């Protein structure tokens, strides 16, 4: 009993501290009393440290008591009776969520300290930390979510803040365009996620992971749906994960996300955001286990992504893109591990990879110095040796492979050309049809399209001769 009380309090601390940060940063900005740089940094520090302490205490308590699955309930927030829908705020502390939450706190905390120096005197300092707070809340909600709705809520917050951070330098054109692109890909992922969530609701009558995955704590739980149902839901979730984790064919957005300031690129796209898709797969791994085709599909997608990204990473000539694809390589491998059922290895892999990549991305601007030190140590120029598999590729094919890697597999072009363009065409056609139809109804006998008059500016005074 006393355990439950303590767990509840600690859980509250973990969730509430980022939320309080968001509220204080958001409200002060809204009320036009923006915090000073120093106070902003301090608030972030306090919130992250408090949350981290609570999370570590939860872990310690779990280890001490041997309890492996703690549920913290905050009741129903929305209840719609006829549809029997309820938004149930519930968090789960188990062997998956606690390490992930701790990782989130450690990395975002470090980045927060980094950014408070890095963005000193930057006009968008407040905006950055506001988005940072949204991101932190999103990550914590998503990692501790006990129901699929809460996970989706966190997932959305992460997506929103990520896209806005990509477009951080909104006075230039390309960050905005790329931010929009990231956002569009996220929408596809979100749509798939939402459909999957609805299906799960229909299948099990609620969004609670406990019901979905059956009893038992992660990773030993067993899901209570049929393999075919699992396949459909799993594939939808795989699409969602692929969008969020930039798996093939959505990989094009990852390097584009490197538009923001270095710390946000490092922690979000190098380390946390990009792993959120794999986290989702880990969370629903009992479902994956049910269907062999689903497992194979996940392994295949992971392997394809890993091979693709490893090739592409090798030819990138700018450091941030190279690291983005290096990151993607590992995400692909992690996905394959999840598909193969190696859950603990995947979790350890995620944590290790996130730390390593964050460090590498933060140090990216020091590349020139690092190379120079290496050259000095080695006593000559650095030459990359060809990979072991280069020998097996014929000369002619090597050039093709190089070109494809340089063009990043033309994935973005394919999406644009085969998906976006037909999509727009169809809707333009629909638009035209609708106009015709409405003009027909309006009694325009010729059925011609009536264009809305363009906003013609009034003649500007009398023009000078």
């Amino acid at each position: 009993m006393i355990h439950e009380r303590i767990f509840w309090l600690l859980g509250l601390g973990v969730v509430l501290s980022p939320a309080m940060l968001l509220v204080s940063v958001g409200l002060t900005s809204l009320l036009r009393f923006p915090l000073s740089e120093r106070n902003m940094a301090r608030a972030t520090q306090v919130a992250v440290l408090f949350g981290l302490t609570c999370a570590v205490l939860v872990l310690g308590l779990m280890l001490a008591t041997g309890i492996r699955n703690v549920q913290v309930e905050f009741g129903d927030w929305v209840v719609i009776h006829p549809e029997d829908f309820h938004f149930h705020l519930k968090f789960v502390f188990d062997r998956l969520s606690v390490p992930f939450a701790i990782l989130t706190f450690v990395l975002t905390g470090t980045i927060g300290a980094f950014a408070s120096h890095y963005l000193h005197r930057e006009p968008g300092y407040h905006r950055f930390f506001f988005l940072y707070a949204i991101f932190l809340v999103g990550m914590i909600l998503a990692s501790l979510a006990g129901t699929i709705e809460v996970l989706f809520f966190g997932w959305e917050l992460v997506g929103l803040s990520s896209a806005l951070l990509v477009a951080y330098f909104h006075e230039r054109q390309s960050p905005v365009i790329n931010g929009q692109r990231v956002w569009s890909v996220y929408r596809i992922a979100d749509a798939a996620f939402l459909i999957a969530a609805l299906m799960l609701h229909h299948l099990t009558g609620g969004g609670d992971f406990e019901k979905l995955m059956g009893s038992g704590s992660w990773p030993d739980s067993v899901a209570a749906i049929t393999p075919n149902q699992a396949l459909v839901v799993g594939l939808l979730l795989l699409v969602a994960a692929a969008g969020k984790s930039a798996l093939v064919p959505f990989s094009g957005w990852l390097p584009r996300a490197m538009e923001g300031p270095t710390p946000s690129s490092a922690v979000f796209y190098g380390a946390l955001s990009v792993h959120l898709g794999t986290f989702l797969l880990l969370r629903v791994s009992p479902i994956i286990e049910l269907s062999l085709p689903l497992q194979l599909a996940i392994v295949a997608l992971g392997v394809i992504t890993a091979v693709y990204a490893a090739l592409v990473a090798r030819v990138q000539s700018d450091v941030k893109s190279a690291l983005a694809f290096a990151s993607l390589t590992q995400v692909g491998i992690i996905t394959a591990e999840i598909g193969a059922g190696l859950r603990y290895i995947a979790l350890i892999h995620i944590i290790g990879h996130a730390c390593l990549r964050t460090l590498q991305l933060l140090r990216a601007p020091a590349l020139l110095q690092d190379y120079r030190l290496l050259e000095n140590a080695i006593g000559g120029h650095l030459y990359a040796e060809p990979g072991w598999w280069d020998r097996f590729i014929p000369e002619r094919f090597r050039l093709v492979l190089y070109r494809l890697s340089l063009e990043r597999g033309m994935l973005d072009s394919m999406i644009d050309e085969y998906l976006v363009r037909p999509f727009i065409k169809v809707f333009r056609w629909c638009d035209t049809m609708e106009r015709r139809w409405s003009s027909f109804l309006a009694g325009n006998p010729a059925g011609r399209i009536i264009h809305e008059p363009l906003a013609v500016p009034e003649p500007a005074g009398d023009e000078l001769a």
Partner: protein
Amino acid sequence: MVEATTAAVPTQEADLQADGLEHLVHTIEHIAHVLPSQGPIQVFIHHNTLHAFEHLSFHDAVKQGGATYGCHPYLPEDRYRQHLARGRIQFEDLAAVLIDDLGEEADHLVSFLGTRHQLRLAMLEHPLRLGPDAELRWLIAETDALRRFREETPPSKREQMIEQTRRWVLRDLSNGSPNENRDAREALASLFEQFGAAGIENWNDATWEAFTLHALWRICHQGVHAVPRFAPLPAPLVRHRDIILQATGIDTDRIVHDVLIRFCGAFLDQGIADWPLPTRELGFFQAFVELYKDARQVDGWLSPLGAELHRIADAQLSAAEVIDENLRRLGVSAGETEEFLSRTMLALRGWAGMIWQMETNAEWIVHRTPHGSLLGFVAVRLLLDRLAVEYVARTELGNGSELQDLRSLARSKIQHASRVSVEQRTFLIFQLAQVLGWTPEALSKLAKSDWSRLVEEIETFSALDRRRIFHLAFERRYRNQVLDAFLIHSQHVAPPSDLPTFQICCCLDEREESFRRHLEEVEPRCETYAFAGFFAVAMYYRGAVEAHHVPLCPILIKPQHYVEEEVVYSLEQTHRARQKTRRVLGKAKHKIHLGSRSGLAGALASIVGSLASIPLVARVLFPRITARVSRLFDSLVQPPALTRLTLERSDPTPGPENGHLGFSLTEMTGIVERVLRDIGLTKRFSRLVIIAGHGSSSMNNPHRAAYDCGACGGGCGGPNARAYAFMANDPRVREALAQRGIRIPPDTFFIGAMHNTCDDTLTFSDLDRLPPSHRGDFEQASAVIKRALCRNAHERCRRFESAPLSITPEAAHRHVEARSEDLAQVRPELGHATNAVCYVGRRWRSQGLFLDRRTFLTSYDPTQDDAERTILTRILQPAVPVCAGISLEYLFSYVDSTGYGCGSKLPHNIASLVGVMDGPVSDLRTGLPWQMVEIHEPLRILFLVESTPAAMQSILEKNPVIQQLVVNEWIQLALLDPDSPSVQLYRAGRFEPYVPESKELPIVSSSVDWYRGSRDHLGFASIVPNVSRRISSKGQA
């Protein structure tokens, strides 16, 4: 006969074509000089951003350069107005500068309303608002613009205008003869109705004010109606992309650059990618053709690319031929070719410039770029441009094949740019009339020709001219302050007579100014000197742990000599062992570095990657301690501290091989003599002479080289100082010097040192050679230096917002140390920011003057120079271009941070190891980042030289480089008379005596008393120790 002619014609044609191609190549190489001339970023040389325009005068160049690059010529007008409001620019500066600028035209009468000078001054003083017509109409209808006078109008003028209008109306308009003022009467007829003419005698003040303004508006409106246009029409667009962008909103550059930048990056890459471009050896153009000719493209616009490239490959067309062909197919006529090519190349100028630099000017890089790469770049770019334009023409403009006429078709779709309307002109004059007190009556008497002249007067004093005048005033204020300060200060200083405790010679860098000032404050009996930081030792240098030779000398000099650092023989074995360990560790590190980015090895690295969180957290949260710990580990594999420079050469010819390293005895003597004579240290040697080079250390900083010593070609000057000290200590050199007239006493010991300007530490070299007799002197000097460094750090900290103003000198030192080790620090130090002056003269004349780290200080003793001014000439030869380069690069990077500079550092991404991009794909960004120039004041550097006009004139005549910079006003020049406190200022070809503005200079007892509590630029002050009581007693009195 017939056969002969037919044979001759093709060859003639071929000749003609060959001539044409050669001309094309020539044109492109000509345009290449306008591209940014920044080379690979490892070596950063400050240079004038508008170097290509140096043959023009400064003001013409910023105008032309601004048009070429689409950049600001000066700061925006608002910024200058803020300076005016803050008192940084004063009203008399504007008036004086304007008088100078107008010359005889200042008194030119603009009709009877006033002189040109008055009109322009009013335009400078009061911001004239101007907006689109809709805004103006709103302003007139919805605000009280026509009911209340502008706030700037002086009350007296307002009263006067209303009163005069009242009299005019009552006297002439409502009762006067109908023939007079017919125009005015017509114009105002409806106004009387509106205001109720019947009650005119009962109108109150507010009504009269409104009536006056309404009348003013109408009369202005009537007056400017049908006045012809004066401003020249903007030049028509030539690039298809620009025209299409305006016509359809589609930017073809976006899609073209995406492909082009990726390829440029791969082609220039110096080692970021593990898999280099396989076709790189073929040169830019062929590499592109080979790589892409068999590609099946997905993008619609690129689909014809494969076929095009196949055709090019089959016909074996050269890059020049492809350029020629594409120009023709795009319908570019011969007359506009140069303009078109220039616009095309400047559209991606960072990459184009880098290719040109690597092709012509960077022989030291690993993967060289073959000759003709820029030509290839232009060929590829034009080909891609054409494909993109064709595609957009097909899909958006409904134009299938005819590219020739595309531009006129697209132009026809562009909506007319708005022109200056009558409303806008009316509003301009309406605003001016209020501040200058032009009454409606006076204006109503202007004839049409007067109106025309008035409008012309106003419109020809364009925003550009106003900004120029503001800029000149901005410079004038600071110049007058500097000159006044020097004049007043040098009245009560005297040359030193005591034998100094020690002497130190630093770099002329303005960052050393405060260090020297603090040294002199801590130990008034020391003497400081400055020479360009390479100390005349021009060499290729390789340290004991370094892999390559780097040039350490000004960029203008190509070193002939090679010097290496060697570990002393007795420690050779340790050195070897450690070298081996380093190599093994280095190779392992490199493997891990590459592996972590690959698949399987990366997976292994990631599984243990949680360990990376330790350095990650430690580095970010505790930079200073982490750096110490890691240095401790490093020291285990660093070479032993005892090393020697291979300075002495026995072989007659210098070179990089063993035996040819170093300098001959005569060369050494020459070097030692040169520096001593230049700085004027030929007698009164103290027992200890310290030679201090400088460099800077910072983390995570692609622009790191820009903080190092400019006189060492963006390298670190420590080895030069060390070499110099070694040479000067050599008894044989001293003997030879004695024969040349410089007698260095045997008990004088030279010691080399390196000042790290970022963390403010000074490291001495070759201390093991310090004679026991000098240990006491050294310890005293080093204690003084330590204190001075703390104070220096303290003074620097006043500029860092993250250091509290109440910080102690010791804490300040810790603060700057942490800065240099902090991964997150984008301003490790502030570099040359705020530099504004270069003083060339004896130190004692500037000693004790607070110069706020804004003044380059070069030691020069005019009394020791010969009649030809040999010494001054050889000081100025490198100093003028180097300092001008620094000053102008900072100026332009500040004036237009995104255009001339490289914008904010935050999104920077190292590309190909040669430069930085914004985010994942952008042009290479050249110039300085905003964080470096943030606190700069964009001023042209003022050279203040201790010399006479005649001497300076003859130096100018003999040195075209200096002359061009001075005559074209890229730098300002003033002469401080060697014998008296008087200054001559260079103006329009001659020196004129400068009349001081003020006679007061604050006196304080120490630097900190002057700068304490302030973060802004500070004025000048004389520092006289123990004077505080005097000032305070004065204050009480």
